[in-house]
């Protein structure tokens, strides 16, 4: 992260932020999906494990 690296314009920064939000939402959706499928596949068995 040196000062003489690529400097982004305001427009590029704005679009990067929009892309980051989209990636964040996609990852969040993936978390929800894995949670849902875990419940669907295991059901009550999700708590049935050796301690």
């Amino acid at each position: 992260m040196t000062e003489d690296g690529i400097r982004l314009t305001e427009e590029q920064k704005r679009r990067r932020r929009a892309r980051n939000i989209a990636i964040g939402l996609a990852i969040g959706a993936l978390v929800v999906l894995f949670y849902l499928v875990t419940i669907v596949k295991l059901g009550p068995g999700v708590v049935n494990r050796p301690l």
Partner: protein
Amino acid sequence: MSLADAQGQMIDDTAWSGGHGGVGDYFALLKPRVMSLVIFTALVGIVLAPGGIHPVLAATALLCIAIGAGASGALNMWYDADIDRVMSRTRNRPIPAGRVTGDEALAFGLTLSGFSVLVLGLLVNWFAAAFLAFTIFFYVVIYTMWLKRSTPQNIVIGGAAGAFPPVVGWAAVTGSVSLEPLVLFLIIFMWTPPHFWALALFKSGDYEAANVPMMPVVAGERSTRTQILAYSLVLAPIGVLPWIMGFAGLAYGLVSAALGVAFVIFAYRVWAMRKGDAARKAAVRLFSFSILYLFLLFAMLLGEHLLIALISGPAR
């Protein structure tokens, strides 16, 4: 060689101007219109498959197939940026327009390909995941990188990639493949050549300029028209096969037969009208009708199946 040069050129030109792509540009890389057809045909494969599947798993499978198809689209646009720049139809795509760099599209396509296959395998089943991986490979490597630029049979063989989604959908439910999804595959496979050659007839200038050996460019319009008619004559009876084989009802049988006759009539007009504006109009009409044909066939399969399920109560 020229491609490598063109690719290198493109990367050099845009190396300092990356990061311009908005969310919409990346969405466009997924070829959303192609994706909608993939989602629809895969849904029919899922619904028709015996045994049923939990709705959450069905939605997951559909999502993965859609993302896999989108990833193939992004990788196709990455590789084809040089010819997309030449053709009027594709000039405004994100890479030729300079909004997304080739490297960005490649990374995007590879990431989504990996995730779609991995998630389908982990959450649904690995057979369907392997099939999805093969579909992506077939579209990107076999069709885009190899066949598209080397043979006028490009879309005939490459059409298999577009025909796989209902089979992947079926495999997501059953973990296997049987004759029924292969019939769905065959319908889309035989539909692809007349559909794309009708487009190529009125866009042949584009393909010629881009050096893509589409049938009208290589074999001439006369031969293309004859082949369109021949494929249509084969497609029409194949469209009725689901009823003959007993996995679709009489309503589907009647509608598919009528649509098949209409398809042959449109193809005959393309064959008979060879010059001027009438010839162009006939090709445009066949192209438009072919989209409607495929949509209605699969919509009938879906509607009929859901109606029967509704009347006879839930399967499980």
